[in-house]
């Protein structure tokens, strides 16, 4: 009998039965923070990589002991959970220099010795042959350290298997993404995001089996039963709350595409299974749907966005960013300028704090006004119909 899984529930917490089961079997767990982390390398070492976040955090008091109020709330909430010992399943931490807020966590983890294994991975900010060579050296250094610390051997075969497994996850998430992009959509944007988030804190082999079932349910949905509404693309940094998209969709819009770092940015583009596995991991880190941290990729980011707007027949774009996120703050301004020139598509910019329950009213008002603007420009309106399927 098929296991019934509530992916939205899974997405609502890092802790879950699959993680507990993994821990209970005595196998190690390493936390990481960003889509630029080499998850496959950890998996090949017999380690469960879990993408960390502050979900469940009630306040930032512990994080505030080490980070200032000008550091972003995602990082302060997450650090609070770590410092409170709430993420006690962690055997190690892998920090990448994704942004200044995240990279400085490494300093706190080191100074406070919060976990036995702590590694800083210096991911280049340019995509070049030289930076590729540097990243592969970094990855080989990490491989050696993992082998030594955890007493394992990471074989080429294990790495290839890990890449295949992770590519399968990416493909499944891509399928979910395509379903919400249909016209009318068979899946909602919040469902697709929940699936993506759920995949980050459980073993991928288990996830893939469960996701197959969930997707099959979605694919059985009758698309004709969903009337058309304004089709939105949401982009931005850390958004690990499907409820945020759910609220937007509850007002009659469909989030048909995203460029979020917990969404498409995390699963777009597969690793090459035909080349050396470390090379493949490095290539994907440098080349997959780029983040604003990559200095030389703005033209590609803009092209990706314009292509998505065209492919998914997007009526409007919502840009969300966490307060104090410099990278997305600048990126959104650049995109707004470019879009004004190149497409004229309406854009709504939303700034938010992480994990605050408040703000829903304000969000509703602003989105409502935006949707009205879109409808004046001719975007369709629709009523919401709740359906069964992916939970």
């Amino acid at each position: 009998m098929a296991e019934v899984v509530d992916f939205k529930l899974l997405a609502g917490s890092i802790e879950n039965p699959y993680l507990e089961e993994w821990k209970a079997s005595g196998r190690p767990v390493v936390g990481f923070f960003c889509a630029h982390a080499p998850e496959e390398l950890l998996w090949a070492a017999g380690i469960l990589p879990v993408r960390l976040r502050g979900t469940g955090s009630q306040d930032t008091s512990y994080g505030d002991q080490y980070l200032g109020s000008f550091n972003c709330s995602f990082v302060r909430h997450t650090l609070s959970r770590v410092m409170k010992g709430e993420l006690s399943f962690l055997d190690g931490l892998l920090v990448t220099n994704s942004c200044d807020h995240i990279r400085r966590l490494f300093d706190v983890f080191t100074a406070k010795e919060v976990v036995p294994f702590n590694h800083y991975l210096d991911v280049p900010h340019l995509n070049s042959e030289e930076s590729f060579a540097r990243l592969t050296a970094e990855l080989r250094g990490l491989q050696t350290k993992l082998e030594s610390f955890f007493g394992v051997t990471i074989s080429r075969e294990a790495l290839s298997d890990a890449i295949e497994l992770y590519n399968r996850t990416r493909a499944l998430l891509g399928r979910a993404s395509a379903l919400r992009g249909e016209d009318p959509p068979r899946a909602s944007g919040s469902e697709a995001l929940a699936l993506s988030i759920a995949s980050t804190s459980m073993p991928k082999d288990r996830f893939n089996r469960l996701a197959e079932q969930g997707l099959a349910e979605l694919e059985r949905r009758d698309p004709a039963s969903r009337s058309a509404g304004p089709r939105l693309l949401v982009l931005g940094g850390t958004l690990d709350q499907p409820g945020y998209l759910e609220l937007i969709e509850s007002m009659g819009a469909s989030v048909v595409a995203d460029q979020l770092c917990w969404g498409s940015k995390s699963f777009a583009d597969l690793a090459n299974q035909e080349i050396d596995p470390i090379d493949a991991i490095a290539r994907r880190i440098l080349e997959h749907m780029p983040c604003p941290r990559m200095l030389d990729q703005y033209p590609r980011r803009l092209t990706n966005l314009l292509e998505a707007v065209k492919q998914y027949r997007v009526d409007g774009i919502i840009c969300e960013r966490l307060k104090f996120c410099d990278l997305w703050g600048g990126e959104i301004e650049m995109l707004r300028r470019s879009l004004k020139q190149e497409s004229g598509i309406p854009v709504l910019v939303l700034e938010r704090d992480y994990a605050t329950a408040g703000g829903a009213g304000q969000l509703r008002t602003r989105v409502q006004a935006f949707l009205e603007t879109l409808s004046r420009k001719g975007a369709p309106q629709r009523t919401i119909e709740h359906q069964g399927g992916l939970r």
Partner: protein
Amino acid sequence: MGRMSSAPPMRFMREKIETQYKPALEMLRADLIPHGRLIAGGLELAIAHYEETFRAMDERHKKLGWYSFCLTPELFLAMDILPFLGESHPVTVTRVSPELCWEYVDTAEAAGLPSELCALDKFIYGAMLKNEMPKADFIVTGSAPCDSSRIGYQMFEQLADCPVFRLDAPVEDSREAHLYYAGEIRKLIGFLEEQTGTLLDPDRLREVCEESNRATDAFLDLFELRRARPCPQAGAVTAGAYMAMVTQLGTPELTGYLEFLRDDAAQAVAEGRGAVAEERHRVFWYCVPVTFDLGLHEWLEENFRVVVLMDQLGSFCREDPIDTTSLDTMLVDLARRGLETTMSRLRVTADKMKEQFLRDYKDLRADCVVFPAPAGCKHAWAWLSLLKETCREREIPICSFDLDWMDSRIRSVDSIRSAIEEFFTTVME
């Protein structure tokens, strides 16, 4: 995307040079301002540099290369390119005209930039929109030090009408990191050759590097002399010397100025003469200066008999000389210097920063630390607590407060001085 105006670039700055900077220079030369005789040389270099920049834009007699805190200027000088450090301009302007900083910051924020970006980047963006940044032939930037500059230079590129070259700066502070960055600089040379139409002459680079080494030697001597008790020169002198260093390393004019300062300091030490009468406290000023409070050093000196020995900006200059044996050795050492420039050094881990902090604090024979934590600097805010712990463990008194180091509307001069006063009248009393 082009600039917003077709008027000659930096019109306001051209006017300021004539109406404000040159008269100020005369006052300094006449020693009508405290320590004026010593500071004058730095301002003189700055004025000459601006005039040369205006000339390069107007007459196009040489290429104007805008670079960021990821390089020192020797390579540009060797290729007869006029180097312009983008980050130095906001500091220079704000020192004399804080209200201009407000105008540019407001312009940037009105255009959509988030208020919490570093004021330096907001200033530059706003100034670009106002046509008050140089019209460069190209821009060279790197991936250090911070998110604000990483996204900032991508935004500047959107406004600029020129090619941009980027260097990837590794986090590590190691031989391997220097070699990698030297490779990045080697690629930069190809870009510069393309832009200028001339090939780099290694012998000319050697000459510039040797000149740079002479300046560094003088600066290191100066550093040693500042360890004397009483400290022979005021903090304002060091701050001015620093600005000259980052923009003009490799020029004989800079070397001459630093040698002048060194000789003056040596004489003062020999005579037992201090910059502050009856020196009481010796501050290691960590992090950024308060750019809009030109009278801060004097106020500290007069009210608390405090001398600012060095700030974190200036201490980067404690660097080994460039090995001029070959092009390869020069590039590796230029890489090391580029990575160790003021802000780029923030790329390293807290352990490394702590090591450098404790080294400088001890070597300078400081007895307290002032740490102004700028609102836009996420590094500073993530590092301050660990620094305070380090200070507590070693019983180093530390005064920290928040501010925007360029925008006095965020925290006023009075409020900043009040925080410092409280420290010196309680903790240090």
